[in-house]
Protein backbone atom coordinates (compact mmCIF):
# COMPACT_ATOMS: atom_id res chain seq x y z
CA UNK A 1 0.00 0.00 0.00
CA UNK A 2 1.20 3.50 -0.81
CA UNK A 3 1.90 5.88 2.06
CA UNK A 4 -0.83 8.43 2.85
CA UNK A 5 1.39 11.41 2.16
CA UNK A 6 4.43 11.50 -0.09
CA UNK A 7 6.68 14.47 -0.75
CA UNK A 8 9.11 14.13 -3.63
CA UNK A 9 11.96 16.61 -4.18
CA UNK A 10 9.97 19.53 -2.85
CA UNK A 11 11.73 22.88 -3.20
CA UNK A 12 10.72 26.42 -2.26
CA UNK A 13 12.72 29.58 -2.85
CA UNK A 14 12.19 33.08 -1.50
CA UNK A 15 14.32 35.33 -3.67
CA UNK A 16 17.84 34.00 -3.19
CA UNK A 17 17.00 31.94 -0.13
CA UNK A 18 16.14 28.28 -0.58
CA UNK A 19 13.79 27.71 2.33
CA UNK A 20 13.03 24.09 1.44
CA UNK A 21 15.59 22.29 -0.66
CA UNK A 22 14.80 19.06 -2.47
CA UNK A 23 13.01 17.45 0.47
CA UNK A 24 11.46 13.99 0.09
CA UNK A 25 9.75 11.83 2.69
CA UNK A 26 6.51 10.04 3.30
CA UNK A 27 4.07 9.47 6.13
CA UNK A 28 2.06 6.28 6.63
CA UNK A 29 -1.59 6.27 7.49
CA UNK A 30 -2.18 6.31 11.24
CA UNK A 31 1.37 7.37 12.10
CA UNK A 32 2.71 10.32 14.03
CA UNK A 33 5.55 12.04 12.22
CA UNK A 34 7.62 14.82 13.76
CA UNK A 35 9.47 17.48 11.85
CA UNK A 36 12.30 18.99 13.84
CA UNK A 37 15.23 21.25 13.23
CA UNK A 38 16.77 24.52 14.34
CA UNK A 39 14.91 27.82 13.88
CA UNK A 40 14.74 28.85 10.26
CA UNK A 41 15.25 25.30 9.02
CA UNK A 42 12.16 25.50 6.81
CA UNK A 43 9.73 23.49 8.91
CA UNK A 44 6.82 25.91 8.79
CA UNK A 45 7.49 26.61 5.12
CA UNK A 46 7.15 22.88 4.53
CA UNK A 47 3.75 22.94 6.27
CA UNK A 48 2.68 25.94 4.22
CA UNK A 49 3.57 24.03 1.07
CA UNK A 50 1.57 21.05 2.26
CA UNK A 51 -1.50 23.16 3.08
CA UNK A 52 -1.41 25.20 -0.10
CA UNK A 53 -0.45 28.55 1.44
CA UNK A 54 2.69 28.51 -0.70
CA UNK A 55 3.23 26.90 -4.07
CA UNK A 56 6.40 24.82 -4.38
CA UNK A 57 8.97 25.79 -7.02
CA UNK A 58 9.71 22.14 -7.67
CA UNK A 59 8.71 18.65 -6.65
CA UNK A 60 5.35 17.16 -5.87
CA UNK A 61 3.19 16.52 -2.82
CA UNK A 62 0.90 13.49 -3.13
CA UNK A 63 -1.90 12.90 -0.67
CA UNK A 64 -3.65 9.57 -1.25
CA UNK A 65 -1.92 9.60 -4.65
CA UNK A 66 -3.53 12.94 -5.54
CA UNK A 67 -1.25 15.92 -6.06
CA UNK A 68 -1.88 18.86 -3.71
CA UNK A 69 0.27 21.23 -5.76
CA UNK A 70 -1.69 24.14 -7.22
CA UNK A 71 -4.69 23.65 -4.99
CA UNK A 72 -5.99 26.38 -2.72
CA UNK A 73 -5.80 25.92 1.06
CA UNK A 74 -9.56 25.43 1.47
CA UNK A 75 -9.56 22.74 -1.24
CA UNK A 76 -6.81 20.91 0.58
CA UNK A 77 -8.79 21.05 3.82
CA UNK A 78 -11.74 19.56 1.94
CA UNK A 79 -9.47 16.73 0.74
CA UNK A 80 -8.75 15.92 4.39
CA UNK A 81 -5.61 17.84 5.40
CA UNK A 82 -6.25 20.18 8.34
CA UNK A 83 -3.72 22.36 10.10
CA UNK A 84 -3.04 24.57 13.10
CA UNK A 85 -0.99 27.75 12.99
CA UNK A 86 2.26 28.38 14.83
CA UNK A 87 1.17 31.95 15.54
CA UNK A 88 -2.34 30.84 16.67
CA UNK A 89 -4.90 32.24 14.29
CA UNK A 90 -8.26 31.92 15.93
CA UNK A 91 -11.26 34.13 15.27
CA UNK A 92 -10.73 35.88 18.57
CA UNK A 93 -13.98 37.84 18.76
CA UNK A 94 -16.11 34.79 17.94
CA UNK A 95 -17.08 32.23 20.54
CA UNK A 96 -15.13 29.05 21.17
CA UNK A 97 -18.04 27.08 19.71
CA UNK A 98 -18.11 29.19 16.56
CA UNK A 99 -14.40 28.66 16.05
CA UNK A 100 -15.00 24.93 16.08
CA UNK A 101 -17.99 25.41 13.77
CA UNK A 102 -15.74 27.25 11.33
CA UNK A 103 -13.78 24.01 11.00
CA UNK A 104 -17.03 22.18 10.27
CA UNK A 105 -17.86 24.62 7.46
CA UNK A 106 -16.27 22.59 4.67
CA UNK A 107 -18.39 19.52 5.49
CA UNK A 108 -21.64 21.49 5.33
CA UNK A 109 -23.69 22.12 2.22
CA UNK A 110 -26.27 24.86 2.91
CA UNK A 111 -26.02 27.62 0.32
CA UNK A 112 -27.15 31.23 0.27
CA UNK A 113 -30.86 30.64 -0.35
CA UNK A 114 -31.21 27.71 2.02
CA UNK A 115 -29.51 29.83 4.69
CA UNK A 116 -31.66 32.91 4.09
CA UNK A 117 -34.91 31.00 4.09
CA UNK A 118 -33.91 28.49 6.77
CA UNK A 119 -34.98 25.28 5.04
CA UNK A 120 -35.55 22.16 7.11
CA UNK A 121 -32.42 20.52 5.67
CA UNK A 122 -30.38 23.58 6.53
CA UNK A 123 -31.61 23.56 10.12
CA UNK A 124 -30.89 19.85 10.51
CA UNK A 125 -27.42 20.29 9.10
CA UNK A 126 -26.78 23.27 11.37
CA UNK A 127 -27.81 21.35 14.49
CA UNK A 128 -25.70 18.37 13.50
CA UNK A 129 -22.73 20.69 12.99
CA UNK A 130 -23.22 22.27 16.41
CA UNK A 131 -23.36 18.81 17.97
CA UNK A 132 -20.20 17.75 16.22
CA UNK A 133 -18.39 20.96 17.18
CA UNK A 134 -19.37 20.45 20.82
CA UNK A 135 -18.03 16.90 20.67
CA UNK A 136 -14.67 18.11 19.39
CA UNK A 137 -14.55 20.70 22.14
CA UNK A 138 -15.28 17.97 24.68
CA UNK A 139 -12.59 15.84 23.07
CA UNK A 140 -10.04 18.64 23.48
CA UNK A 141 -11.22 19.51 26.98
CA UNK A 142 -12.79 22.86 26.13
CA UNK A 143 -16.43 21.98 26.77
CA UNK A 144 -16.52 24.42 29.67
CA UNK A 145 -15.81 27.42 27.45
CA UNK A 146 -18.42 27.04 24.66
CA UNK A 147 -19.77 30.59 24.79
CA UNK A 148 -16.57 32.38 25.81
CA UNK A 149 -14.84 34.38 23.12
CA UNK A 150 -11.76 32.67 21.76
CA UNK A 151 -9.71 35.73 22.68
CA UNK A 152 -10.43 35.19 26.36
CA UNK A 153 -8.79 31.73 26.46
CA UNK A 154 -5.36 31.05 27.90
CA UNK A 155 -2.62 30.43 25.32
CA UNK A 156 -2.61 26.72 26.07
CA UNK A 157 -6.35 26.50 25.51
CA UNK A 158 -6.06 28.51 22.32
CA UNK A 159 -3.72 25.86 20.94
CA UNK A 160 -6.25 23.21 21.92
CA UNK A 161 -9.03 25.17 20.23
CA UNK A 162 -7.01 25.28 17.02
CA UNK A 163 -6.80 21.50 17.22
CA UNK A 164 -10.55 21.22 17.85
CA UNK A 165 -11.24 23.46 14.87
CA UNK A 166 -9.02 21.31 12.68
CA UNK A 167 -10.62 18.08 13.96
CA UNK A 168 -14.11 19.38 13.20
CA UNK A 169 -13.25 19.28 9.50
CA UNK A 170 -12.96 15.45 9.51
CA UNK A 171 -9.28 15.42 8.66
CA UNK A 172 -7.45 12.35 7.45
CA UNK A 173 -4.17 14.08 8.23
CA UNK A 174 -3.68 16.83 10.77
CA UNK A 175 -0.64 19.10 10.67
CA UNK A 176 0.21 20.70 14.02
CA UNK A 177 2.64 23.62 13.97
CA UNK A 178 4.32 23.82 17.39
CA UNK A 179 1.29 22.66 19.36
CA UNK A 180 3.18 22.83 22.67
CA UNK A 181 4.42 26.38 22.08
CA UNK A 182 3.76 28.56 25.15
CA UNK A 183 2.39 25.57 27.10
CA UNK A 184 3.55 24.72 30.59
CA UNK A 185 4.50 21.21 31.70
CA UNK A 186 1.05 19.99 32.84
CA UNK A 187 -0.52 21.42 29.69
CA UNK A 188 2.06 19.65 27.55
CA UNK A 189 1.25 16.36 29.25
CA UNK A 190 -2.41 16.83 28.41
CA UNK A 191 -1.38 17.62 24.83
CA UNK A 192 0.63 14.40 24.56
CA UNK A 193 -2.40 12.40 25.58
CA UNK A 194 -4.55 14.38 23.15
CA UNK A 195 -2.22 13.78 20.20
CA UNK A 196 -2.26 10.06 20.91
CA UNK A 197 -6.05 10.10 21.19
CA UNK A 198 -6.23 11.84 17.80
CA UNK A 199 -4.04 9.14 16.31
CA UNK A 200 -6.21 6.49 17.95
CA UNK A 201 -9.16 7.91 16.02
CA UNK A 202 -7.26 6.85 12.91
CA UNK A 203 -6.10 10.35 12.03
CA UNK A 204 -2.54 10.66 10.78
CA UNK A 205 -0.55 13.30 12.64
CA UNK A 206 2.35 15.46 11.51
CA UNK A 207 3.84 17.94 13.90
CA UNK A 208 6.53 20.54 14.15
CA UNK A 209 7.86 20.86 17.66
CA UNK A 210 10.77 22.25 19.60
CA UNK A 211 9.91 20.36 22.78
CA UNK A 212 12.20 17.35 22.29
CA UNK A 213 10.67 15.49 25.20
CA UNK A 214 7.28 15.61 23.54
CA UNK A 215 8.63 14.70 20.11
CA UNK A 216 10.58 11.70 21.39
CA UNK A 217 7.56 10.55 23.36
CA UNK A 218 4.86 10.61 20.70
CA UNK A 219 6.46 10.35 17.25
CA UNK A 220 7.19 7.11 15.42
CA UNK A 221 9.25 8.84 12.82
CA UNK A 222 11.24 12.07 12.80
CA UNK A 223 12.35 14.21 9.86
CA UNK A 224 15.23 16.56 10.64
CA UNK A 225 15.66 19.73 8.58
CA UNK A 226 18.56 22.15 8.58
CA UNK A 227 18.79 25.12 6.21
CA UNK A 228 15.94 23.65 4.19
CA UNK A 229 17.69 20.33 3.64
CA UNK A 230 16.59 17.03 5.12
CA UNK A 231 19.62 15.85 7.07
CA UNK A 232 18.13 12.82 8.75
CA UNK A 233 15.06 10.62 8.97
CA UNK A 234 14.28 7.77 11.30
CA UNK A 235 12.87 6.62 14.61
CA UNK A 236 13.40 8.82 17.67
CA UNK A 237 16.11 6.46 18.89
CA UNK A 238 17.98 6.61 15.60
CA UNK A 239 17.72 10.39 15.45
CA UNK A 240 18.97 10.76 19.02
CA UNK A 241 22.20 8.99 18.11
CA UNK A 242 22.63 10.55 14.66
CA UNK A 243 25.93 12.53 14.65
CA UNK A 244 24.71 15.04 12.04
CA UNK A 245 21.65 15.87 14.08
CA UNK A 246 23.69 16.29 17.24
CA UNK A 247 26.01 18.58 15.35
CA UNK A 248 23.16 20.64 13.94
CA UNK A 249 21.65 21.13 17.37
CA UNK A 250 24.90 21.63 19.26
CA UNK A 251 26.15 23.94 16.55
CA UNK A 252 23.11 26.06 17.05
CA UNK A 253 23.06 26.16 20.83
Amino acid sequence: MNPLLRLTNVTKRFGGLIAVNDVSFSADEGSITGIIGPNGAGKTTLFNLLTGNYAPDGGDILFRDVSLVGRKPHEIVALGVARTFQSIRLFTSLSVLENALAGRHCRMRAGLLASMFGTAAQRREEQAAVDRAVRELEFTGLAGFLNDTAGSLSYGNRRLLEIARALASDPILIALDEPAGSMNQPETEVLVRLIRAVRDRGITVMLIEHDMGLVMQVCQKLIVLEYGIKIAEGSPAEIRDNPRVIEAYLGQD
Partner: protein
Amino acid sequence: MDLLFQQLVNGLAVGGIYSLVALGYTMVYGVLKLINFAHGDLFTIGAYLGLTLFVAMGSAGTLPGFAAVLPVAVMVMGLTALLGGALERVAYRPLRKAGRLSAVVSALGASIFFQNAVMLVWGANYEVYPEVMRPSTVVFLFDTGVPLIRLIIIGVSLLLMLTLYGFIHHTRTGTAVRAAAIDQGAAALMGINVNRIITLVFLIGAGLGGAAGIMVGMSYGQIDFSMGFSYGLKAFTAAVLGGIGNIPGAMLGGMLLGLIETLGSAYLTIAWKDAISFFVLILILVIRPTGILGERTAEKL
Protein backbone atom coordinates in the same frame (compact mmCIF):
# COMPACT_ATOMS: atom_id res chain seq x y z
CA MET B 1 4.73 68.51 -31.33
CA ASP B 2 4.15 71.91 -29.74
CA LEU B 3 0.88 70.68 -28.37
CA LEU B 4 2.44 67.53 -27.00
CA PHE B 5 5.16 69.51 -25.24
CA GLN B 6 2.64 71.91 -23.76
CA GLN B 7 0.52 69.03 -22.58
CA LEU B 8 3.55 67.39 -21.00
CA VAL B 9 4.26 70.58 -19.07
CA ASN B 10 0.62 70.84 -18.03
CA GLY B 11 0.62 67.20 -17.00
CA LEU B 12 3.72 67.61 -14.87
CA ALA B 13 2.32 70.73 -13.21
CA VAL B 14 -0.93 68.98 -12.29
CA GLY B 15 1.11 65.93 -11.39
CA GLY B 16 3.30 67.98 -9.06
CA ILE B 17 0.20 69.19 -7.23
CA TYR B 18 -1.18 65.66 -7.04
CA SER B 19 2.16 64.43 -5.73
CA LEU B 20 2.31 67.02 -2.96
CA VAL B 21 -1.19 66.14 -1.80
CA ALA B 22 -0.52 62.42 -2.25
CA LEU B 23 2.50 62.71 0.06
CA GLY B 24 0.19 63.76 2.88
CA TYR B 25 -1.99 60.71 2.33
CA THR B 26 0.87 58.30 1.98
CA MET B 27 2.90 59.50 4.97
CA VAL B 28 -0.08 59.29 7.29
CA TYR B 29 -1.00 55.93 5.85
CA GLY B 30 2.56 54.70 6.24
CA VAL B 31 2.64 55.43 9.95
CA LEU B 32 -1.00 54.95 10.98
CA LYS B 33 -2.53 52.77 8.23
CA LEU B 34 -5.24 55.41 8.11
CA ILE B 35 -6.78 57.11 5.09
CA ASN B 36 -6.95 60.71 6.17
CA PHE B 37 -10.02 61.72 4.19
CA ALA B 38 -9.86 65.23 5.62
CA HIS B 39 -6.50 65.81 3.93
CA GLY B 40 -8.10 67.08 0.72
CA ASP B 41 -9.93 69.71 2.73
CA LEU B 42 -6.72 70.90 4.38
CA PHE B 43 -5.56 71.49 0.84
CA THR B 44 -8.68 73.59 0.16
CA ILE B 45 -8.09 75.55 3.35
CA GLY B 46 -4.52 76.19 2.19
CA ALA B 47 -5.83 77.67 -1.05
CA TYR B 48 -8.25 79.98 0.77
CA LEU B 49 -5.78 81.02 3.45
CA GLY B 50 -3.30 81.88 0.71
CA LEU B 51 -5.82 84.16 -0.93
CA THR B 52 -6.91 85.80 2.31
CA LEU B 53 -3.40 86.41 3.60
CA PHE B 54 -2.24 87.80 0.29
CA VAL B 55 -5.14 90.20 0.07
CA ALA B 56 -4.76 91.13 3.75
CA MET B 57 -1.10 91.98 3.28
CA GLY B 58 -2.04 94.41 0.56
CA SER B 59 -5.20 95.74 2.15
CA ALA B 60 -3.45 98.94 3.26
CA GLY B 61 -3.06 100.11 -0.30
CA THR B 62 -2.32 98.38 -3.53
CA LEU B 63 -1.76 94.66 -3.63
CA PRO B 64 1.77 93.60 -2.81
CA GLY B 65 3.93 92.32 -5.65
CA PHE B 66 4.47 88.76 -6.69
CA ALA B 67 7.36 88.53 -4.26
CA ALA B 68 4.83 88.42 -1.41
CA VAL B 69 3.78 84.97 -2.56
CA LEU B 70 6.72 83.40 -0.79
CA PRO B 71 6.03 84.67 2.75
CA VAL B 72 2.34 83.97 2.21
CA ALA B 73 3.13 80.40 1.17
CA VAL B 74 5.33 79.89 4.22
CA MET B 75 2.61 81.19 6.53
CA VAL B 76 -0.03 79.05 4.86
CA MET B 77 2.09 75.94 5.15
CA GLY B 78 2.60 76.69 8.82
CA LEU B 79 -1.11 77.25 9.46
CA THR B 80 -2.32 74.18 7.58
CA ALA B 81 0.37 72.16 9.31
CA LEU B 82 -0.98 73.25 12.69
CA LEU B 83 -4.49 72.41 11.56
CA GLY B 84 -3.30 68.95 10.47
CA GLY B 85 -1.70 68.42 13.86
CA ALA B 86 -4.87 69.50 15.64
CA LEU B 87 -6.94 67.20 13.44
CA GLU B 88 -4.83 64.24 14.48
CA ARG B 89 -5.24 65.09 18.16
CA VAL B 90 -9.00 65.49 18.03
CA ALA B 91 -10.25 63.04 15.44
CA TYR B 92 -7.67 60.27 15.16
CA ARG B 93 -5.63 59.89 18.33
CA PRO B 94 -8.60 58.75 20.45
CA LEU B 95 -9.23 56.05 17.84
CA ARG B 96 -5.65 54.81 17.57
CA LYS B 97 -6.45 51.54 19.35
CA ALA B 98 -9.90 51.08 17.81
CA GLY B 99 -10.65 49.40 14.51
CA ARG B 100 -9.68 50.83 11.16
CA LEU B 101 -13.27 51.47 10.11
CA SER B 102 -14.08 53.85 12.93
CA ALA B 103 -11.04 55.97 12.08
CA VAL B 104 -12.13 56.09 8.43
CA VAL B 105 -15.57 57.36 9.41
CA SER B 106 -14.10 59.87 11.86
CA ALA B 107 -11.94 61.09 8.99
CA LEU B 108 -15.02 61.42 6.78
CA GLY B 109 -16.71 63.42 9.55
CA ALA B 110 -13.68 65.70 9.77
CA SER B 111 -13.77 66.15 6.00
CA ILE B 112 -17.45 67.13 6.06
CA PHE B 113 -16.73 69.50 8.93
CA PHE B 114 -13.82 71.26 7.19
CA GLN B 115 -15.59 71.51 3.87
CA ASN B 116 -18.63 73.14 5.45
CA ALA B 117 -16.48 75.35 7.64
CA VAL B 118 -14.79 76.69 4.51
CA MET B 119 -18.19 77.26 2.96
CA LEU B 120 -19.40 79.19 6.00
CA VAL B 121 -16.25 81.30 6.31
CA TRP B 122 -15.55 82.09 2.66
CA GLY B 123 -18.93 81.45 1.05
CA ALA B 124 -20.30 78.86 -1.33
CA ASN B 125 -19.23 80.69 -4.51
CA TYR B 126 -15.84 80.27 -6.03
CA GLU B 127 -13.11 82.81 -5.32
CA VAL B 128 -10.60 84.19 -7.78
CA TYR B 129 -6.88 84.65 -7.13
CA PRO B 130 -5.71 88.20 -7.98
CA GLU B 131 -3.77 88.64 -11.22
CA VAL B 132 -0.66 89.71 -9.30
CA MET B 133 -0.34 86.19 -7.95
CA ARG B 134 -0.72 84.66 -11.38
CA PRO B 135 1.93 86.02 -13.71
CA SER B 136 0.79 85.51 -17.28
CA THR B 137 4.37 85.46 -18.54
CA VAL B 138 5.01 82.92 -21.24
CA VAL B 139 8.48 81.53 -21.73
CA PHE B 140 9.71 79.79 -24.82
CA LEU B 141 11.22 76.38 -24.40
CA PHE B 142 12.17 74.43 -27.54
CA ASP B 143 10.29 77.07 -29.55
CA THR B 144 7.10 76.36 -27.62
CA GLY B 145 5.32 78.87 -25.47
CA VAL B 146 4.84 77.60 -21.93
CA PRO B 147 3.23 79.57 -19.08
CA LEU B 148 5.92 80.47 -16.57
CA ILE B 149 3.59 79.68 -13.66
CA ARG B 150 3.42 76.03 -14.71
CA LEU B 151 7.21 75.79 -14.73
CA ILE B 152 7.36 77.45 -11.32
CA ILE B 153 4.88 74.92 -9.99
CA ILE B 154 6.83 71.99 -11.39
CA GLY B 155 10.05 73.45 -9.96
CA VAL B 156 8.66 74.18 -6.51
CA SER B 157 6.89 70.85 -6.17
CA LEU B 158 10.06 69.01 -7.17
CA LEU B 159 12.06 71.09 -4.70
CA LEU B 160 9.63 70.34 -1.87
CA MET B 161 9.64 66.65 -2.72
CA LEU B 162 13.43 66.45 -2.85
CA THR B 163 13.68 68.26 0.47
CA LEU B 164 11.23 65.82 2.00
CA TYR B 165 13.06 62.87 0.49
CA GLY B 166 16.35 64.12 1.88
CA PHE B 167 14.79 64.68 5.27
CA ILE B 168 13.25 61.20 5.41
CA HIS B 169 16.33 59.38 4.20
CA HIS B 170 19.23 61.38 5.58
CA THR B 171 18.29 62.66 9.01
CA ARG B 172 17.83 60.99 12.36
CA THR B 173 14.23 62.12 12.62
CA GLY B 174 13.54 60.92 9.09
CA THR B 175 14.91 57.51 10.00
CA ALA B 176 12.59 57.51 13.02
CA VAL B 177 9.67 58.23 10.70
CA ARG B 178 10.60 55.29 8.51
CA ALA B 179 11.07 53.07 11.53
CA ALA B 180 7.66 54.02 12.92
CA ALA B 181 6.12 53.21 9.55
CA ILE B 182 7.60 49.72 9.57
CA ASP B 183 6.77 48.76 13.13
CA GLN B 184 5.44 51.19 15.71
CA GLY B 185 5.95 48.82 18.59
CA ALA B 186 9.56 48.12 17.74
CA ALA B 187 10.19 51.80 17.10
CA ALA B 188 8.83 52.65 20.54
CA LEU B 189 11.11 50.01 22.09
CA MET B 190 14.06 51.65 20.36
CA GLY B 191 13.25 54.85 22.23
CA ILE B 192 11.43 56.64 19.41
CA ASN B 193 8.58 58.83 20.60
CA VAL B 194 5.95 57.48 18.22
CA ASN B 195 3.37 60.10 19.15
CA ARG B 196 5.77 62.85 18.21
CA ILE B 197 6.52 61.13 14.90
CA ILE B 198 2.80 60.85 14.11
CA THR B 199 2.27 64.52 14.90
CA LEU B 200 5.25 65.39 12.75
CA VAL B 201 3.89 63.37 9.85
CA PHE B 202 0.57 65.20 10.06
CA LEU B 203 2.36 68.56 10.22
CA ILE B 204 4.47 67.82 7.16
CA GLY B 205 1.65 66.26 5.16
CA ALA B 206 -0.79 69.08 5.88
CA GLY B 207 1.88 71.71 5.18
CA LEU B 208 2.61 70.20 1.77
CA GLY B 209 -1.12 70.01 1.09
CA GLY B 210 -1.48 73.71 1.96
CA ALA B 211 1.31 74.57 -0.47
CA ALA B 212 -0.44 72.54 -3.17
CA GLY B 213 -3.63 74.51 -2.48
CA ILE B 214 -1.91 77.80 -3.21
CA MET B 215 -0.42 76.32 -6.37
CA VAL B 216 -3.86 75.41 -7.67
CA GLY B 217 -5.07 78.95 -7.01
CA MET B 218 -2.04 80.42 -8.76
CA SER B 219 -2.26 78.05 -11.66
CA TYR B 220 -5.97 77.99 -12.40
CA GLY B 221 -7.12 81.18 -10.70
CA GLN B 222 -10.33 79.75 -9.30
CA ILE B 223 -10.83 77.97 -6.01
CA ASP B 224 -13.99 76.66 -4.38
CA PHE B 225 -14.92 75.03 -1.12
CA SER B 226 -15.45 71.55 -2.58
CA MET B 227 -12.28 71.31 -4.65
CA GLY B 228 -10.51 69.33 -1.94
CA PHE B 229 -12.82 66.46 -2.75
CA SER B 230 -11.79 65.93 -6.36
CA TYR B 231 -8.13 66.79 -5.83
CA GLY B 232 -8.06 64.68 -2.70
CA LEU B 233 -9.55 61.72 -4.51
CA LYS B 234 -7.09 62.03 -7.37
CA ALA B 235 -4.17 62.45 -5.01
CA PHE B 236 -5.20 59.46 -2.96
CA THR B 237 -5.51 57.50 -6.18
CA ALA B 238 -1.99 58.64 -7.03
CA ALA B 239 -0.73 57.45 -3.65
CA VAL B 240 -2.28 54.01 -4.18
CA LEU B 241 -1.04 53.88 -7.74
CA GLY B 242 2.53 54.42 -6.53
CA GLY B 243 2.10 52.04 -3.61
CA ILE B 244 0.53 53.59 -0.55
CA GLY B 245 2.85 54.20 2.37
CA ASN B 246 5.75 54.62 -0.03
CA ILE B 247 7.07 58.19 -0.32
CA PRO B 248 8.77 57.95 -3.73
CA GLY B 249 5.68 56.01 -4.82
CA ALA B 250 3.44 58.98 -4.05
CA MET B 251 5.73 61.29 -6.04
CA LEU B 252 5.82 58.91 -8.99
CA GLY B 253 2.10 58.14 -8.78
CA GLY B 254 1.16 61.84 -8.71
CA MET B 255 3.33 62.73 -11.69
CA LEU B 256 2.10 59.70 -13.64
CA LEU B 257 -1.52 60.46 -12.89
CA GLY B 258 -1.12 64.10 -13.91
CA LEU B 259 0.48 63.08 -17.20
CA ILE B 260 -2.00 60.31 -17.97
CA GLU B 261 -4.97 62.51 -17.22
CA THR B 262 -3.70 65.50 -19.22
CA LEU B 263 -2.59 63.47 -22.22
CA GLY B 264 -5.69 61.28 -22.06
CA SER B 265 -8.09 64.20 -22.09
CA ALA B 266 -6.09 65.96 -24.81
CA TYR B 267 -5.77 63.02 -27.16
CA LEU B 268 -8.48 60.56 -26.22
CA THR B 269 -11.62 61.98 -24.70
CA ILE B 270 -12.35 64.99 -22.58
CA ALA B 271 -15.72 63.67 -21.42
CA TRP B 272 -14.05 60.74 -19.67
CA LYS B 273 -11.22 62.84 -18.21
CA ASP B 274 -12.05 62.09 -14.59
CA ALA B 275 -12.57 58.41 -15.26
CA ILE B 276 -9.21 57.84 -16.99
CA SER B 277 -7.24 57.91 -13.77
CA PHE B 278 -9.54 55.31 -12.22
CA PHE B 279 -9.28 53.00 -15.20
CA VAL B 280 -5.51 53.19 -14.96
CA LEU B 281 -5.64 52.60 -11.21
CA ILE B 282 -7.78 49.50 -11.55
CA LEU B 283 -5.63 48.15 -14.35
CA ILE B 284 -2.42 48.61 -12.35
CA LEU B 285 -3.85 47.13 -9.17
CA VAL B 286 -5.09 44.07 -11.04
CA ILE B 287 -1.56 43.54 -12.34
CA ARG B 288 0.31 44.72 -9.24
CA PRO B 289 -1.95 44.50 -6.18
CA THR B 290 0.27 46.75 -4.05
CA GLY B 291 0.89 49.53 -6.55
CA ILE B 292 3.93 50.33 -8.63
CA LEU B 293 6.52 50.73 -5.86
CA GLY B 294 4.60 49.04 -3.05
CA GLU B 295 6.32 46.05 -1.56
CA ARG B 296 4.70 42.69 -1.51
CA THR B 297 4.86 41.55 2.05
CA ALA B 298 4.72 37.81 2.48
CA GLU B 299 2.44 37.09 5.37
CA LYS B 300 3.86 35.17 8.28
CA LEU B 301 1.72 32.19 9.15
